């Protein structure tokens, strides 16, 4: 199955987030160890998609882009959604990505950023009392993620597999 090209697709770059309203889809391409977090208010039909690269901003002395980190990025998107009419208690989150892309004798030396991104995202969402409505995380495949603002559905594309919807 192919994901139809949609003129209302809005692309979210690596380490960025975007907010969109009705009749739009938010898309982020090629999540590996990165985690895509969709946040969506079913009543107002407004949503955000965040492409997280790293779990914790506290590991770094100089922060140039807060949305790159799970601990700063998620609250940033939620604050922005509230400005667009969302209500925090209604927001539903979905998590996609956090894979371990590499194999081989040296793979264990790559500390598992994917797993840490997933854990930190779950923790931040829990701290903010945001319900996780679906997940497609871990494994060893890259993923492209779509959030449909009209339905709240998240579509996931992987190479060599059929489209998954959560």
């Amino acid at each position, binding site marked *: 199955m192919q994901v139809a090209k949609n003129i209302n697709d809005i692309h979210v770059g690596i380490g960025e987030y975007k907010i969109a309203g009705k009749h739009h889809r938010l898309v982020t391409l090629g999540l590996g160890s*990165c985690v895509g977090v969709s946040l969506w208010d079913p009543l107002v039909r407004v949503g955000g998609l965040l492409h997280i*690269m790293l779990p914790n901003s506290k590991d770094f002395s100089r922060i140039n882009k807060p949305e790159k980190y799970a601990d700063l990025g998620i609250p940033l998107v939620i604050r922005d959604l509230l400005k667009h009419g969302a209500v925090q208690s209604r927001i539903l989150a979905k998590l996609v990505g956090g894979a371990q892309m*590499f*194999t*081989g004798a040296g793979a264990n*030396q790559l500390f598992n950023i*994917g797993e840490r991104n997933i854990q930190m995202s779950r923790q931040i969402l829990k701290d903010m009392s945001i319900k996780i409505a679906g997940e497609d995380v871990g494994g060893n*495949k890259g*993923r492209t993620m779509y959030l449909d603002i009209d339905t709240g559905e998240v579509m996931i594309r992987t190479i060599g597999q059929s489209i998954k919807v959560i």
Partner: protein
Amino acid sequence: MTETGVFSKLQMDALQEIGNIGLGHAATSLAQMLDHKIGLGVPHADFISFERAIELIGGYEELVSCVSLKLHGDIKGLVFYIFNETSTYRLADMLMGLEEGTTVQLDDMVTSTINEIGNILTGAFVTAISDFTQLQIGTSVPVFAFDMLAAVFTSLVLSSSNPDENSILAIETQLFRDDKKVSGHFFLLSEPNSIAKLFQALGI
């Protein structure tokens, strides 16, 4: 589109020359392995952003193979080779002595072949730099991935000791056997300290 930042024209030329020498050694190793003459395109070296690097190789979702080694010693960082899908299969055919077009998907045999090529190319490259500069550079055992370009690339960069860096030294390489072209991209991701040591060793 270049983001050379603090590097001078002379320093960039030196990096390009290192690329030339490294790639020359890599091609020689490959030629010995194949017992066949291997041609070499003039490499192009540049410091570029991650987004630019992804665009340079292909699309975000393009299927690529990637072999990576960690560097330790005087120069710390990561080196990796990325080949697109066509080049991956073509390399496997070349190395296994098969007719071009035989390999159309990745199995364990192809994976191990690509791993070996990546290992040889990267190893020869690093040895050449090490000999040229008299710096001690060690390499780790390789890791391998075959998947969406953006997923592979970002995961690798984020697993480096400098996941917060925003640019990377890219050396575009082309290898030929007869008229069959295999395009690869070689990347060096290092910390500012190591790059400074490299320039110091080169006397610039």
